[in-house]
């Protein structure tokens, strides 16, 4: 589909806790991960993907580019998204998660920086984080016409056209498979991104 991975720099996690991290007994229940995009202009965020590792709740704040000269402010775009329904048990603890722009509370048109706030209220886990973090932006917006031609064309001819909508993550034609005698080679008209 037309989404493009955005190269990002993930800063080290910072634990938020009251008191001295080294001497206090308890484990921090809140971690903050900053994600910057040093070589990329402000972009429209399409999808955030990661593998969870025992994080229970996720909040995301975003700093966007503003056209006026006011300094860019941090806005919460996802609040307390639940990754583990029961923070004390394994459910959801190591799952792959995708978050899309339609799930965000604000428009994600000109993203400069992201801040992920991870929460794990249960004291039972030794550590928690998110791994394999990947950010995607909108790919080239236009066409994506998939042309399917059967090599053994019956007399009436069989062509299947499906206009690919950018918001779907895979082609619509899968829902209405066209019966063919042989598997047909797929000819892509548009250059495949990524």
């Amino acid at each position, binding site marked *: 589909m037309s989404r493009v991975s955005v190269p990002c720099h993930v800063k080290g996690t910072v634990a938020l806790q009251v008191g001295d991290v080294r001497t206090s007994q308890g484990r921090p229940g809140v971690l903050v991960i900053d994600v910057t995009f040093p070589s990329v202009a402000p972009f429209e965020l399409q999808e955030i*993907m990661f*593998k969870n*590792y025992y994080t229970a709740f996720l909040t995301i704040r975003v700093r966007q580019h503003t056209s006026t000269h006011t300094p860019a402010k941090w806005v919460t775009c996802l609040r307390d998204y639940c990754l583990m329904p029961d923070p004390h*048990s*394994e459910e959801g603890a190591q799952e792959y998660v995708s978050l899309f722009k339609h799930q965000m509370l604000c428009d994600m048109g000109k993203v400069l920086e992201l801040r992920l706030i991870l929460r794990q209220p249960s004291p*039972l886990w030794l550590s*928690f984080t998110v791994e394999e973090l990947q950010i995607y932006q909108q790919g080239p917006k236009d066409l994506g016409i998939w042309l399917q031609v059967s090599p053994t064309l019956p007399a009436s001819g069989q062509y299947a056209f499906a206009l690919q909508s950018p918001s779907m993550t895979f082609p619509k034609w899968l829902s209405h*498979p066209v019966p063919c005698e042989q598997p047909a080679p797929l000819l892509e008209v548009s250059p495949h991104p990524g």
Partner: protein
Amino acid sequence: MLQEESDLALIIAQIVQKLKGSTLYAQLERQAWASLQRPEIKLESLKEDIKEFFKISGWEKKLQNAVYSELNVFPLPSHPAAPPEHLKEPLVYMRKAQGSWEKRILKSLNSMCTELSIPLARKRPVGEQKELLNKWNEMGTDEPDLSLFRPVYAPKDFLEVLINLRNPNYENGDSHSFRTHLGLIQVPLKVKDIPELKEFFVELGLTAGQLGIDDSTQVPPELFENEHVRIGQKVLSEQDSAAAQQYIRQGSPTALRAELWALILNTSSQPEDVKLTASNDDYYFVFEDYLYQVLLCFSRDTSVLGHFAYNSASPPKSYIRGKLGLEEYAVFYPPNGVIPFHGFSMYVAPLCFLYHEPSKLYQIFREMYVRFFFRLHSISSHPSGIVSLCLLFETLLQTYLPQLFYHLREIGAQPLRISFKWMVRAFSGYLATDQLLLLWDRILGYNSLEILAVLAAAVFAFRAVNLMEVTSLAAAEAVLADLSTLKVMPLLQIFLFATVT
């Protein structure tokens, strides 16, 4: 919402792809071509007419049953970035534990073969083949000398592995916290508590009729039994898998059970072209023969390999001599990838009461195995997996019978040590056969093995008074040695719905 739409479309695509390779697809295609001869099929409305024809002739129902079966058996498509091993088992430490367990079994198997100088796999010489075909129907009476063979492993070896299962990211320290596990299982999997179980097993409640309770001699059949049998016959005539699964939650009448199970498991009515000989003139009940036939064929049935996509276990691979590491020379040993353990035949034995035709018996057993029984001897975090069942049992006992649990722990008789063998064999060989079949009705109806853990806890609750008086593990085992007089459904009903919590 956009996300759900694309999820649904992905599921549809997956099911379509799976069904395209099946015999049902070929049959539907053939039927569609044949139907063109029929007068009611008009060229202008071809698609609609054929659809209508399928509906009337019952083929649409068969397709619905196949789709329902796929939805029940295969897990939903996971995240596109998730690798295939994630689908087998999402938790990394469990995958590792399953891998080391498999290595141990293989080592044991290989060393036994080396000791006895028997190659693991070789083609049967022609003379032996002829002999086998001749003796096919009497295999139980003419067994080879198996006295030197040991079972590859016993359930209690497996229990030791489960007891030692640890999550490296979990607080396993000595200090007792609010979540210390007092039982044997030390991994924090999510298990249902009694309110959730009551909701899940709502059809077993006190206000619903049950076979196993409301068909006893004191209860007039007009109250429940007659109507229930009538509905069962209707479900069978409609040939609807989903309806059958819902119906069987209240138990299956004995006369209808074989057909109902076949409908729910969606086994084909065509006798399968399997190695079983077609000429079965003697249908006598020598179960030993059936067991040998079924298990021999099962071990060679490579279609069973398909279930390893969602089983945390992997089939052991071995290489033709001299070609170690070359994939073209890799073979799965045994061919179906399943290494049986001591007592494995107990999964098949109860089915012999239902199915007299070996081909049907085999199909049902294979479906039951790839849907349910494989979960009882592989390490996974699935809610019906043996680890979750053990934890569910211990949690239920600890929460609702704390005095009994504490007492048994104190005398060195951890309850799981006694109930593990019941659950691993799905109670086969421990309950009376009619009670066992009523229990397996519910496994099929709810598509889950959790009822095994609930029954195990219910048995302990039933014998609690005697158990409180014992002072050793051996005495506790003796109290729970004989389950053959137990009635399964009243026990379950009382434990879930009539115990003060």
